[in-house]
């Protein structure tokens, strides 16, 4: 399928999924009446349907789509820069750092209840952790930079995850709150979350697009790229910073949603190949579609109970990824 047609097709699917997502919930609304409710009743300020849509559903649906875009985008960027199909947005510690930030904010209470400062703490934790990984990776001259970053990322992540577990062990009364935050959810979404994520994702997308051609060359190794004139260190640093900020903004408002950022780039590559300039857009849209769809399932599967969306992405995403892995191995052996 031609690239523009494919993009159009996925974008239409995403909008349809968002529309469907708007109509399901504790009050099921007729999808056909959604637009009329949003627009025509502007003179009736206290129409309950309109209030539900504007105050609750719309920010949630938009946030789930944006978070998916953010994770799909940063997943593609991390896989590109690490030349590693197993890389995901959390590979060098963005998620464990966010967990630590969120845990500290929840447990030590300086932000109890206020979701804005919970996200601020998570965002800070996330960025600081990746910065720490950078510092450690820089000191190592024996491994190639990419390997150093991955190793430092694993070590720092597992250290920080243990720290989170340790804090929660001491304060088990907060276990439930933090545990659910870690699984990822869109329950506490409002428009300020949406705006922050929208801006970082949009700017991040722009930056990554500028770097996309260099990332194509970098996929053949640092040395090969350098001899084509790619400023390797600069491109690597810029990509990781951009992808980390995108990931951190997503994680800080919706928790650690598993698998979406790993799978979206793979699905996209199946259709349009590995070129990053195309991959970034398609992977964003696919990520958005995955999360909006997962959110619909999370809200309806055990209705009236709502599942954390991270459970759905893992339950559906992991088998799908295993299938891809299996199919790919089969293709290699042929």
């Amino acid at each position, binding site marked *: 399928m031609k690239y523009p047609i494919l993009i159009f097709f996925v974008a239409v699917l995403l909008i349809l999924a968002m529309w469907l997502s708007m109509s399901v919930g504790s009050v099921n609304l007729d999808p056909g009446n959604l637009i009329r409710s949003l627009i025509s009743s502007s003179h009736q300020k206290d129409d309950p349907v309109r209030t539900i849509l504007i105050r609750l559903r719309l920010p949630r649906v938009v946030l789930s789509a944006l978070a998916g875009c953010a994770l799909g985008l940063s997943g593609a960027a991390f896989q590109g820069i690490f030349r590693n199909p197993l890389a995901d947005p959390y590979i060098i510690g963005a998620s464990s750092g966010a967990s630590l930030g969120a845990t500290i904010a929840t447990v030590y209470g300086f932000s109890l209840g206020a979701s804005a400062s919970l996200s601020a703490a998570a965002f800070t934790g996330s960025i600081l952790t990746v910065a720490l990984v950078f510092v450690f990776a820089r000191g190592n001259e024996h491994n190639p930079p990419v390997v150093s970053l991955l190793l430092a990322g694993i070590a720092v992540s597992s250290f920080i995850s243990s720290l989170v577990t340790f804090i929660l062990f001491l304060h088990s009364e907060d276990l439930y709150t933090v545990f659910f935050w870690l699984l990822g959810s869109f329950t506490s979404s409002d428009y300020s979350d949406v705006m922050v994520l929208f801006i970082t994702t949009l700017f991040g997308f722009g930056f990554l*697009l500028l770097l996309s051609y260099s990332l194509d060359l970098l996929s053949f190794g640092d040395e*090969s790229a*350098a*001899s*084509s*004139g790619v400023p390797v260190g600069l491109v690597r640093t810029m990509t990781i910073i951009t992808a980390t900020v995108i990931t951190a903004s997503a994680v800080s408002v919706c928790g650690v949603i598993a698998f979406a950022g790993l799978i979206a780039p793979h699905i996209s590559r199946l259709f349009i*190949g*590995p*070129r990053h300039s195309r991959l970034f857009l398609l992977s964003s849209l696919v990520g958005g579609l995955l999360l909006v769809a997962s959110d619909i399932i999370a809200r309806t599967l055990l209705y009236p109970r709502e599942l954390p969306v991270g459970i759905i992405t893992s339950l559906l995403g992991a088998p799908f990824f295993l299938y891809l892995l299996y199919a790919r191995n089969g293709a290699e052996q042929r």
Partner: protein
Amino acid sequence: MSALTLENFSCGYSSTPVVTHIDMCIPSSRLTVLLGPNGSGKTSLLRGITRILKPLSGTVELDNQNIYNIPLKQFSRRLARVSQSIEVNWPYTVHDFVAMGRYPHRRFFSKLDSHSAEIVDATLKETGLSAFAHRSITRISGGEFQRAKIARALAGEPEVLVLDEPIAHLDLHYQVSIMNELQRICKSGKTVFVSLHDLNFAARYADYVYLLSEGQIAAHGTPDQVIAPDTLSAVFKTPISVHTLEGHIFTMPANP
């Protein structure tokens, strides 16, 4: 005239020099072959003159200009390198792979302009890769991939092409076709500097030969000057005999 000039040049890895204090002149629009045993410093030398390894001493000049005084992008526009091994992580098409050779000519973010697109198509045609253009680089043979690497370097329209053992591990058909290709590139006015292991290919194709031994230049000159039994036997620490058949020089391991 020389395209590349090395003066008192040393390079290597964190103060362990591999190549020490050498002087070299690589003539322009000629095919110069770099010979030498394993570990003699061929790859380090090639990495040094392509700015991958910083020199520990001395200078490399491209047309009388120190290569470190040329902005990186401009340098890679003038000199292209085909390295021995590159990582292949994603299945780019041959066309996209070759198009990446246009990188030094591209602005920060721009589509492949029509001029570049024409050059990529022409290069694919010249190197006989048009038929594979839309196949994945993971699905072509080693010989075809080697050609694609050369095509990628050519797509950047460099003045100088540096290749590290481009015919290693290939069958005779591809060895000959790649060496013919390099000869053709030279005839079009470009300078080619290539490291080889095969003495017979060096004898057959080189305009000029440098023989490297333990990081030093053991001999240099035209093929019939360098490819001599005493020199080769000493450098390769193996008795080697040199023969002439129908006007061509060829070497063989001498009887022990």
